[in-house]
């Protein structure tokens, strides 16, 4: 099975978000970047497991600038065979999806993460599926293959749904799909020699633009309640916060 795993680069999860003075961008000073956790822990690892069980290949795809090569190399160190980077500064979700779709023909499964933890879009995977005209199952927590038929469990509000679908398909991975893998020394050495092909983007317009960012208002100081007096807490929740 030929598998493609789309990975993005995001600020590390403990990053304290600060903005530039004109509020049009994240203040990138001191920010550490990682591979988006859903892409790395769940999508990539499940693809590798399927390859180990049934053969085939796992290719990593990123749309981004040369800075992203370190994140791509990490994916190769975890075990992907090769990688493609579409050389671009990005231009919104639909722009990225069109770049991915231009590379994604001929794969049996295209994997995504459930969302990027910076933009929180949950939309690029669905866009690519529509552009390719294939089935899409979002927020999948289990995936089993039987020949070219996938059985997938997907998270829905307050429950789960089990579906069956034939390849080619696109899927977005949520918690449950696989367990995080830490690259070992051998993987890191081998990754240096694996092919990372850089290709130029196709033409596509930007459809959205972030006009500005804003930080949430600072929380006022916590009101401490006497642990013996829970009637007082209930009164405040009712009368002051008006939530019960």
């Amino acid at each position: 099975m030929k598998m493609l795993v789309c990975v993005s680069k995001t600020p590390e999860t403990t990053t304290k978000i600060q903005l530039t003075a004109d509020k049009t961008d994240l203040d990138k000073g001191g920010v550490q970047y990682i591979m988006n956790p859903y892409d790395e822990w769940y999508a990539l690892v499940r693809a590798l497991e399927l390859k180990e069980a049934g053969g085939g290949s796992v290719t990593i795809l990123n749309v981004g600038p040369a800075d992203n090569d370190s994140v791509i190399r990490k994916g190769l160190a975890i075990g992907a065979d090769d990688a493609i980077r579409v050389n671009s500064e990005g231009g919104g979700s639909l722009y990225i999806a069109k770049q991915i779709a231009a590379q994604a023909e001929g794969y049996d499964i295209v994997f995504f993460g459930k969302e990027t933890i910076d933009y929180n879009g949950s939309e690029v995977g669905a866009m690519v599926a529509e552009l390719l005209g294939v089935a899409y199952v979002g927020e999948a927590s289990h995936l089993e293959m039987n020949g070219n038929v996938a059985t997938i469990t997907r998270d829905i509000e307050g429950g789960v749904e089990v579906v069956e679908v034939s390849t080619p398909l696109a899927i977005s991975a949520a918690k449950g799909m696989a367990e995080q893998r830490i690259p070992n020394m051998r993987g890191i050495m081998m990754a240096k020699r694996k092919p990372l092909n850089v290709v130029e983007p196709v033409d596509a317009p930007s459809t959205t633009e972030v006009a500005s960012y804003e930080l949430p208002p600072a929380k006022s100081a916590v009101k401490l309640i006497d642990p013996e007096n829970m009637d007082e807490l209930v009164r405040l929740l009712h009368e002051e916060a008006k939530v019960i």
Partner: protein
Amino acid sequence: MVLVFAEATNGKFKKAAHEVVTYGAKTAAALGSDCVALTLGNVEDAGDLGRFGATKVYNVSAPELAGFDSGVFTAAIAGAAQQLGAKVIVLSHNSTGKNLTGRLAARLDAGSAPGVKAVPVVDGGKFTVRKAVFSGKAFADVEILTDTKVVSLVGNSIPVEESGSAVGVESLTVELPAPKVKVLSTKRAEGTTPLPEAELVVSGGRGLKGPENWGVINDLADALGATTACSRPVADSDWRPHHEHVGQTGVAIHPNLYIAAGISGAIQHLAGVNSSKTIVVINKDPEAPFFKAADYGVVGDLFEVLPRLTEAVKKFKSA
């Protein structure tokens, strides 16, 4: 025209459907146009959506819509939008919506804003919507540049408002592709409100020491009519099911009230809960970082505080 996809579960609307119609009506008002609602499949009392501001309700029913296939649903919504000439399409940012927003945007070559929290600001030719980014650590004001626009609304981010009365329902015929996805089974927890939709949430962390101690969490949740949640290590240790895990790598929630007991308040946990309107933290360590993000704090042993709080809630409810 603004077209709102109002999802029904087993033929009935939930609060999310009333929220998106309210949102669609307000968006239409900002644009000086009309809001209509679209329902798919068999829906009871679809015209009731008029109460929340839809001037008309359309329905597409076809055997292809029996199970959820994002490709078929996308074709239905896009087809309806094109027939009706709708320029703004509104969905819920729930699991169904997350399978559809991107597909619809790609199909209509439209700009999209997934996960918006406020009604768009329409200024001259500009259409700008606010969405949470960095897992709730910041907001982005996103301008949608295309003529056709797709937005999805986060649950519990605007109040439901009644502004009209029931309206007529008209059937539409849209050409649909054969489904590629076959639904084998659908399981939903009965009785409790799912976490992404919950208004009240009671959550437990490693401070509970083990799954056998969850009674104190469940009792408070029962007394409040709240949904239960947990921190990631709790789900990772299988003390609780993984769908209860909230935070950066779990479910992001937006309740009116979040009560956290025995949770330290790590930044990745806060990322999923910081859009709660009111946060109550119960922790025996006065230095726990969660107190900095809390509205109300109780420094004490949760095994004493939670039962006391449950009693106080029961007393309040029966008063």
